[in-house]
């Protein structure tokens, strides 16, 4: 592997800005890495090499004092962000000839900062599925353990960043779809506050719960991306000290039914925070158990409304899981949709005035269990699908219902050598604080620097 690809995004950006390496050289290295390793991972749906190389050459001609925050940095994104004149599949092969006529404002912001977005990444079809399975493009495989899931639906985003194909990637998170792939693939993912980043010109599922967010290999890298995607100030926050801050440890729900390895890992993470001067405090959280069903009562009818024409025209053309979940949306009454939306307001207020008033951020496991085998969680419909979804997303979906920001960062390896991760949760619009805490944790623990063995061996 080209050692430059093992740098973090910020380190690579410094080399590019200083002219130690050109944008074209780094893009060539990234494409070569995809060609070498992606047959074993299947993270990439398409490479837009010609356009990307033209951009890289143009960037190399920019004087050093005029270079942007992401000058020449190769990125790749979940294949649901529109770019004018390019294909966008939504993870569905029949869309393979569909060229978009508009560009996502998020891609425009990355372009404006000098990033080179060169590849479209695998995802669950229509962003419906938390495992990384895709019947059209094939299952995306975990770079740490190909027989295990990548998480989803932004499966390719987690896998491509972990495999060092790209320094960062955009995903979208309606029930955990940024955080689960980050957690399963040993990288760092941020679900921003609901509504912080625009939903224009990207594939929608649920305007109430959809949340685009970045994945990278460090919280500082995410902060740099958020400086571009949102507003400046996030990276500066990561330089501030954390001593004296308090992390809240929930007394219920997030500690229930934990796998022993997850339990030991979260205890170890608490010790890391204690070592860097952060005080753990116990906090009581409102009963989270109804939130998954209430979230379903909001996003499923919204998704069914958006995709009803496809469901009516030729339901057999939709992948099984997408068809099953869209059909479920038709089963929710408008009365229940409105009641769930109103309950959401009460639940958020309880969190703001309760546990999040007693600490700076809450610390919980990213998942209740270690990363499962792909064969253990494959289901296309029915009750087995619902049970699998509930088990995988138990700690991610509450934040979509509540609209709160969450950061997932690696906190160790399980007995199979597969990443375990923790999740930090804060008040609305406190992304900078999450990134500050994540950065401090990563400096001390260093699990975000662990590479998949398949890269170390090559």
């Amino acid at each position, binding site marked *: 592997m080209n050692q430059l690809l093992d740098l973090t995004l910020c380190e690579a950006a410094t080399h590019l800005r200083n002219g130690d390496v050109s944008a074209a050289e780094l893009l060539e290295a990234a494409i070569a890495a995809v060609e070498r390793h992606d047959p074993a991972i299947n993270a990439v749906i398409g490479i837009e090499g010609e356009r990307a190389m033209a951009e890289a050459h143009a960037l190399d001609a920019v004087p050093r004092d005029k270079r942007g925050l992401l000058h020449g940095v190769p990125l790749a994104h979940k294949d649901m962000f529109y770019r004018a004149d390019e294909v966008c599949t939504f993870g569905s092969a029949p869309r393979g000839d569909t060229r978009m006529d508009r560009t996502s404002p998020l891609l425009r912001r990355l372009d404006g900062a000098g990033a080179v977005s060169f590849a479209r990444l695998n995802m669950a079809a229509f962003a419906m599925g938390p495992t990384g399975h895709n019947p059209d493009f094939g299952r995306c495989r975990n770079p740490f353990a190909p027989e295990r899931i990548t998480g989803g639906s932004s499966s390719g985003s987690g896998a491509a960043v972990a495999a060092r194909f790209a320094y960062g990637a955009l995903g979208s998170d309606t029930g955990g779809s940024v955080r689960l792939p980050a957690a399963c693939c040993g990288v760092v993912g941020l679900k921003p506050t609901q*509504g912080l980043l625009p939903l224009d010109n990207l594939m929608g599922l649920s305007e109430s719960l959809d949340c685009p967010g970045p994945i990278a290999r460090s919280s500082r890298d995410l902060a740099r991306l958020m400086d571009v995607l949102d507003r400046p100030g996030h990276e500066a926050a990561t330089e501030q000290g954390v001593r004296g801050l308090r992390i809240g440890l929930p007394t219920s729900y997030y500690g229930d039914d934990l796998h022993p390895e997850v339990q030991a890992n979260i205890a170890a993470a608490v010790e890391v925070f204690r070592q860097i001067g952060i005080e753990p405090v116990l906090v009581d959280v409102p009963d989270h158990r109804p939130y998954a*069903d209430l979230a379903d009562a909001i996003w499923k009818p919204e998704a069914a409304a958006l995709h*009803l024409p496809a469901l009516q025209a030729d339901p057999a053309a939709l992948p099984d899981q997408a068809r*099953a979940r869209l059909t479920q949306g038709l089963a*929710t009454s408008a009365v229940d949709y409105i009641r769930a939306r*109103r309950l959401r*307001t*009460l639940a958020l207020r309880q969190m703001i005035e309760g546990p999040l008033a007693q600490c700076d951020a809450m610390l919980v496991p990213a998942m209740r269990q270690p990363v499962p085998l792909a064969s253990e969680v494959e289901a296309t419909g*029915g009750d087995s699908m619902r049970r699998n979804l509930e088990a995988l997303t138990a700690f991610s979906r509450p934040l979509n219902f509540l609209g709160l920001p969450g950061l997932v960062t690696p906190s160790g390896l399980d007995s199979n050598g597969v990443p375990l991760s923790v999740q930090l949760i804060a008040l*609305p619009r406190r992304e900078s604080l999450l990134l500050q805490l994540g950065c401090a944790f990563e400096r001390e623990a260093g699990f975000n620097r662990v590479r998949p063995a398949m890269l170390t061996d090559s």
Partner: protein
Amino acid sequence: MSRMESEASGCAAGLAPEAAAAYALAVHGIRLTGEEAEWFAAEMLRGAGAVQRASAGMALFDVQMAAFDALLRGEGPTP
């Protein structure tokens, strides 16, 4: 979902899969298979029961959906 389970979920009675299939076809233009209709009927009741249980005793009359966005913007608690 059995009739007993559906009643426990908060709904008054079970829903025949045939009725659920007729609803999906008549209202949404979606034709369900027999297996899908069974699951669809069970989901209608399970989902409705879950919302009903979560709403029990909650004062939703004065809650505005827009208040959620105000809370996310940090504009303070709003009923």
